[in-house]
């Protein structure tokens, strides 16, 4: 029996979440309330350390990015070139360094960052301030998706509060701007923080597309290298982190590396926001240790309280549709960063599973996912632009019952070869599309076969078949 190692809520400290609280009690936490409950103390603590020490804490804790790829955050930070001097001199020379916060949460199934922005935006802002100090970044842009109108207003207001209370701006970093860094020979240091709204494009969640969008262009991913840490926003060194990753920083700085590594599993330290959606009794965002079995997440009375209407579990999207599906016999899969290799999915993704009950038509699921990727392909690379469209048409045909067996084979062929990374497309969108369609067809192949008619092949002669 799996037991949680987390005894108190961490990311959801101020956001009532079962089993520690009730969804109904959730409300937006203001600056005053945040500060009264220990908020911004971690930033104060971080400011007493040399920036490099903060980086090494994050590195030692093996905090992995919460945006989907699970890349070690501390390692990402070390890709940055060292600052070329004190901030004032650098800025005078035009050598800015940027932080871009990826709040463009738009992969179907994923709705976890919204929770932090809705109810506890200051936790994210504190994380931003800590990150900017640690990496010596001058300006932070929170790239929030266009559809999050309410969240944009909440975050905008929180940024204003943070400016008024001496976190950001020239009188910022808790009013120690003049002295911050001074102990470590880097001189005065200040951070600016702004909100930048996207406008309804999934691809802008890809890190380089996000930078293009920030620059006021269409969200077309860039070729890498150069990587954003070297040449990012406006050609300057840029770090791109997810909202939840940054929200982990205050508690990590407060409690230290050992505390963090004691949570979760060996390869996936810490807790994670997991948003359960689909056919469950209590959908919503919960905070759990990484490594929680999917079955526990769905069936436990502490979390999703079982399947809706007492139906049986049929499958689940692991974490955002691009990760692919877990079939009924993979219900016990532990939700950690190793799930990809062990259960034949792309990875943990955002750890927001969408649950399907026994009545779900998996052909419909595949068709829906193919439509999403067709709609959201940016159109830059031919394999993805064309392939995603053809996949959708083939799956529509299978769903309508007009397809033949060779269409199913063709679907699989496209889903295996289209824009296979690395090298054939610029970003990973086609790869996500492939994984989703391929895993659904492979794991529910009989359902697809039942929908297609056999291909009629008139056999008139047999060439080369007699060799045996």
């Amino acid at each position, binding site marked *: 029996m799996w037991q949680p190692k987390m005894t108190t809520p961490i990311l959801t400290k101020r956001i009532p979440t079962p089993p520690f609280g009730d969804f109904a009690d959730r409300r937006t936490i203001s600056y005053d309330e945040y500060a009264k409950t220990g908020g911004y103390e971690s930033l104060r603590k971080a400011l007493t350390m040399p920036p490099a020490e903060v980086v090494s804490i994050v590195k030692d804790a093996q905090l992995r990015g919460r945006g989907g790829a699970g890349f070690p955050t501390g390692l990402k930070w070390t890709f940055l070139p060292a600052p070329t001097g004190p901030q004032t001199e650098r800025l005078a020379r035009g050598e*800015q360094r940027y932080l871009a916060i990826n709040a463009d*949460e*738009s*992969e*179907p*199934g*994923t*709705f976890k960052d*919204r929770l932090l922005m809705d109810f506890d935006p200051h936790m994210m802002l504190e994380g931003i301030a800590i990150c900017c100090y640690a990496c010596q970044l001058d*300006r932070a*842009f929170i790239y929030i*998706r*266009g*559809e*999050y*109108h*309410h969240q944009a207003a909440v975050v905008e207001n929180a940024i204003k509060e943070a400016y008024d209370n001496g976190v950001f701006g020239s009188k910022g970093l808790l009013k120690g701007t003049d002295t911050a860094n001074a102990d470590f020979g880097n001189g005065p240091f200040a951070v*600016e923080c*702004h909100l*930048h*709204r*996207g*406008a*309804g*494009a*999934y691809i802008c969640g890809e890190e380089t597309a996000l930078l293009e*969008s*920030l*620059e*006021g*262009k*269409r*969200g077309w991913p860039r070729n890498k290298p150069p990587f954003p840490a070297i040449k990012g926003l*406006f050609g*300057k060194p840029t770090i791109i982190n997810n909202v939840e990753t940054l929200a982990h920083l205050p508690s990590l700085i407060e409690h230290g590396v050992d505390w963090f590594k004691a949570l979760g599993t060996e390869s996936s330290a810490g807790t994670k926001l997991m*948003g*359960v*959606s*689909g*056919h469950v009794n209590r*959908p*919503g*965002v919960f905070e759990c240790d990484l490594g929680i079995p999917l079955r526990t997440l769905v069936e436990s009375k502490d979390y999703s309280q079982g399947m809706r209407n007492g139906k049986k579990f049929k499958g689940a999207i692991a974490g955002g*549709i691009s990760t692919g599906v877990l079939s009924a016999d993979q219900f016990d899969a532990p939700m950690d960063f190793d799930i990809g290799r062990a259960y034949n999915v792309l990875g943990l993704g955002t750890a*927001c599973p*969408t649950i*399907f009950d026994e009545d779900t038509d998996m052909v*419909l*699921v595949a068709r*829906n996912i193919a*439509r*999403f990727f*067709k*709609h*959201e*392909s*940016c*159109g*830059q690379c031919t394999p993805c*632009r064309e392939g995603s469209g053809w996949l959708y048409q083939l799956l529509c045909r299978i769903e309508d019952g007009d397809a033949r067996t060779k269409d199913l084979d063709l679907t699989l062929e496209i889903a295996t070869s289209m824009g296979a990374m690395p090298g054939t497309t610029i970003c990973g969108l086609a790869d996500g599309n492939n994984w989703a369609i391929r895993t659904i067809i492979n794991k529910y192949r009989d359902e697809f076969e039942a929908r297609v008619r056999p291909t009629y092949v008139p056999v008139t002669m047999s060439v080369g078949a007699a060799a045996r």
Partner: protein
Amino acid sequence: MPWISKDSANTTIERRDEPYLTEAMIKTARETYLPRYETKQAATLPVLHMIQHTYGWIPHQAIEEVAEFLELTPGTVLDTASFYEEFWLKQKGKHTIAVCRSIACEVCDHAALTNRCREKLNIEIGETTDDGVFTLIELECLGACGGAPAALIDETLHETVTPEQLNALIDGARKNKAH
């Protein structure tokens, strides 16, 4: 599908004397947005958001005005504007009803919502009612999968909506027409 090119070069641009990009917008852009970015082009999205929010769509004349203000070519601004789904380059209804059609919502029966709208307003997806009050669209993921099925009416998100609730919301929005 943002790569599909929009109207060709021989489109006549409807014009009016009063500029769409008002003095107040220019002031906001100068004071708030431009200082944030290293290039003027980076303010394109915030400025287009202001226009979209104020007028409900982005007329070509406004694109030209934005281009002039940001010292870009109109083509560059149109290139950006046409990529993003939230920028409407054609006029739409006063209120937009956007039903989410992504996976969690589809398996939780988003079709019931869309069908109720189609019947009630007598329009298909992507169309605007004759009186120009409502536009019905289906969108990909609204980020409300826990509250599926979800619908966005103008800028307000509604979660776990039933067709009856949506019906009432539409009636409510229709009453606001007078504003």
